[in-house]
């Protein structure tokens, strides 16, 4: 006796046809490769990929509308909104399918707000199905995620294991005593590295550490160093390592999703703004931090002669340009002195979540 579960290419649901000795066949033959690919996209994993992508696009739109409508500028609140875009599509499809197993059926699709299969089955000039374009987009996103996020993180984790950075303790450094005045020095060990390059970073752990180079101390003035160190203090004090690890693991599930790729980067940028605000709350000098950022990251980059034009260099240039834009946006923000209202935005978040949940139910 065999219990067969056939996946239905259009209605997607798993139909139990019963337990019996023979059925329409345990092996399927396909009329064309195209039909096979269409069936693959309409299987449960295929539907998960397609619908999680659709849900993340719609959620991104809803979140953006909410941020604009309520004029949310507080980066911590914005980050909460952006988290919805990352987390929601991970669970949306399976949860909706549990709520209504017929949700992907033809009848549901005919009355849906947006039926993604209509787009996937559409053919450009009657020849190339658009689904191949989607497949290419998912593949490229997966490649970018692998090389730009996963590999660097794994490499960094591997390289930093057991390695020790030695430097002079900041308390013993003549310039640093005044810099550290009023900063929460008990929260992190601060070291000055003998290096002519501009180096500034922090590590988190049981007790965090902040490292800055002598080159940096030579270029930034006292207030700017103080602002920069305060920013690193914020990173150390905000250290939410288990939370971030869980977040990243969840983010890996969406490795193919270009919307999640972009929004995850926005979350990281918002984190920088949160640390900027924290630094300003300690130093009361936003302009010093803005100047420090300008000196650290905004250099007059000239086109390197002889640099070959290829996709890798173009990607690098694009990445640099995007980084530069982010820094400029932080500098502008610090210059304008956006005040964080006390509003945590819970009303807006709850309402947005409700709309996200209801609307995406009708996106199949």
């Amino acid at each position: 006796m065999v219990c067969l579960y056939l996946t239905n290419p259009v209605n997607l649901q798993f139909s139990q046809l019963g337990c019996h000795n023979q059925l329409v066949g345990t092996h399927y033959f396909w009329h064309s490769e195209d039909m096979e690919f269409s069936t693959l996209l309409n299987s449960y994993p295929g539907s998960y990929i397609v619908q999680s992508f659709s849900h993340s696009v719609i959620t991104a739109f809803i979140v953006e509308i909410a941020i604009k409508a309520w004029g949310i500028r507080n980066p911590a609140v914005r980050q909460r909104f952006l988290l919805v875009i990352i987390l929601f599509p991970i669970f949306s499809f399976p949860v909706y399918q549990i709520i209504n197993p017929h949700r992907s059926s033809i009848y549901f699709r005919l009355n849906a707000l947006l039926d993604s299969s209509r787009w996937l089955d559409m053919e450009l000039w009657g020849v190339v199905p658009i689904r191949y374009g989607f497949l290419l987009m998912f593949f490229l996103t997966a490649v970018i995620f692998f090389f730009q996020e996963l590999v660097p993180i794994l490499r960094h984790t591997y390289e930093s294991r057991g390695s020790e950075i030695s430097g002079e303790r900041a308390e013993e450094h003549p310039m640093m005593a005044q810099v550290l005045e009023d900063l929460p020095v008990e929260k992190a060990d601060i070291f000055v590295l003998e290096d002519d390059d501009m180096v500034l970073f922090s590590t988190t752990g049981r007790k965090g550490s902040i490292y800055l180079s002598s080159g940096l101390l030579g270029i930034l003035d006292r207030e700017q160093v103080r602002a920069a160190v305060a920013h690193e203090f914020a990173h150390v004090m905000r250290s939410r390592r288990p939370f971030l690890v869980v977040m990243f693991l969840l983010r890996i599930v969406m490795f193919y999703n270009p919307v999640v790729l972009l929004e995850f980067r926005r979350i990281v940028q918002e984190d920088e703004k949160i640390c900027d605000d924290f630094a300003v709350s300690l130093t009361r000098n936003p302009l010093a931090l803005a100047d420090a950022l300008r000196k650290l990251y905004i250099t007059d980059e000239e086109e390197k002669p002889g640099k070959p034009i290829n996709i890798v260099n173009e990607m690098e240039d694009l990445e640099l340009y995007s980084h530069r834009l982010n820094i400029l946006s932080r500098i502008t923000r610090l210059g304008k002195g956006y005040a964080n209202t006390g509003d945590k935005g819970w009303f807006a978040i709850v309402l947005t979540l409700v709309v996200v949940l209801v609307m995406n139910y009708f996106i199949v």
Partner: protein
Amino acid sequence: MRGKILGFFAFSVGIGILVLGLKFLNWLPLMVQIDSMREYKDVEEVKGALQIKTIFIPSYFPQNLNWPPSKILAQGKPFLAVIMEFEKMTGKDTMLLISQSTSEDFFPEEKIKIIKVKESISYPVKGRDALLRVGLCQRNEPCSGISWKEGEYTIHVLIKSAPFELIKIAESMLR
């Protein structure tokens, strides 16, 4: 508070625009792609639009069912599929569902779903090796279904009644 109310208003407007945009995006492929899954008025329209030569229609039809089909859905791509629903004379309940498709996996059974299969046997329908299933649908209604391959098509016939009428209908679909 005023800011929240204004924000709520702006949010509602934004969501309204988004819904309209999505409705447009959902409608656009139907305009561009003629063979997407959609509803048709009658069988002849399906034949003309999708260039289908044969649509299997029963010549025997139980008296308690309405003719013509209450709903006809069909698509040409990625595979050919036609669904016909028939309601009973009195009421709006779908009593009979016939589907034919070039995909073996296509099985639109939402309207008549055999939840509890009591018996599943191989049954010959005019020389074709068919699978007959008898069981219960929702609200413990007796229902039955029969499936077989007919050339390039896989045909499913589902009815909310005992299998006697079902077999008659299935046999009347074949020469």
